[in-house]
């Protein structure tokens, strides 16, 4: 007795779906390709500019930092006795620590590549997050290529490893969500 309205409803749904699917495609008001091509060209130009400008700016910064003490005018000798201040020695980063950071980065990179290749496809917001992280990693790589100071390099390697970890965790998110969905069924679903 109760099946009749339900069947009627299903027929109605099917008929509506068919009617909507049968609607003809709309025609775009104009060819959108020139605008897309222009945007791609603009982005390429911006990227190329950054690729050249960032290392150049970093190199210039390093050069100024090195040259500045030599360019500074020498002070006249003072007659008053100088108070000798003991300054802290610059932080030295042993080569072994840099090597460890590099090795960690390689391991993380391999991990992220494997996740990217074999993992579940990322959803909209996760995809945007992944792209942003990849951009930041690219920027750190550029800075690393220009940095010579061991302390700066160590800091950049640490930053790179942190970003890679975040990227890896982002790739693991779909599994965490799927696991959560399996264990906690939606109470609103009527079976």
């Amino acid at each position, binding site marked *: 007795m109760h099946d009749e309205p339900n069947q009627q409803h299903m027929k*109605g749904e099917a008929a509506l779906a068919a009617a909507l699917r049968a609607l*003809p495609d*709309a025609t*775009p008001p104009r060819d959108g390709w020139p605008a897309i*091509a222009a945007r791609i060209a603009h982005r390429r130009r911006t990227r190329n500019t950054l690729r050249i400008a960032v290392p150049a700016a970093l190199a210039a910064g390093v050069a100024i930092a090195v040259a500045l003490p030599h360019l500074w005018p020498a002070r006249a000798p003072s007659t008053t006795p100088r108070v000798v201040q003991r300054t802290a020695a610059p932080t030295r980063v042993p080569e072994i620590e840099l090597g460890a950071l590099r090795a960690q980065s390689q391991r993380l990179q391999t991990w992220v590549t494997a996740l990217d290749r074999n993992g579940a496809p990322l959803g909209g917001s996760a995809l945007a997050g992944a792209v942003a992280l990849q951009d930041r990693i690219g920027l750190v790589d550029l800075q690393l290529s220009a940095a010579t100071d061991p302390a700066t390099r160590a800091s950049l390697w640490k930053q790179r490893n942190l970003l890679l970890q975040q990227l890896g965790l982002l790739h693991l998110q779909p599994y965490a969500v799927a696991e959560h969905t399996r264990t906690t069924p939606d109470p609103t679903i009527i079976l």
Partner: protein
Amino acid sequence: MEPSTSSQQHSFQRQVEPELVARLQRGDLAAFECIYRQFERAAWTLALRLTGRADVAQEVVQDAMLKAYERARQYRGDAPFPAWLRKLVVNEALMRLRHDRLHVFEAFTDTQPDADAPELWTRADATALDRALNRLPDTARAVLWLYHVEGCTHIEIAEQFGRTVSFSKSQLARGTRRLRELLRTQSETTPCTMNPISNT
């Protein structure tokens, strides 16, 4: 904005040559143009149905296509390429609806199924249905389209909108009812059927 007379439907079901996708993944702009031209109309129709506004639909298509070009290397071939592209368009359109606040969530509480006879839909005139669809509130229209045409479940729709399953069900029920009312009003004022839909 005018419905075309072409009988080609659901162009996202078209096949794309794997070689063309591979070239796109290598950043080949000519391959991308080829793909863009194949799917421009389907993407435009989908964006227009979901957002209800030509200016917004144009931006949605542009942004989604640009993402397709820039993220082509992330396409792994798990699903057909057109389905991946369609998902980008849907995501972009819904994101725009949320950001631009084009839609106003109406507090529909009725989820009663629409038990009227299906004849209204089978007899419906394509132009009238298209017009009635455009007059629906943005959310109801988007939910109706996602459910009936894109084949999304209520759970998926709820996730896309960041709302509950009840929200999706009530939007669908109310949207269907309102669409029926709009069609009836139109058929009363214009009784002649000029462009019947073929459901065969």
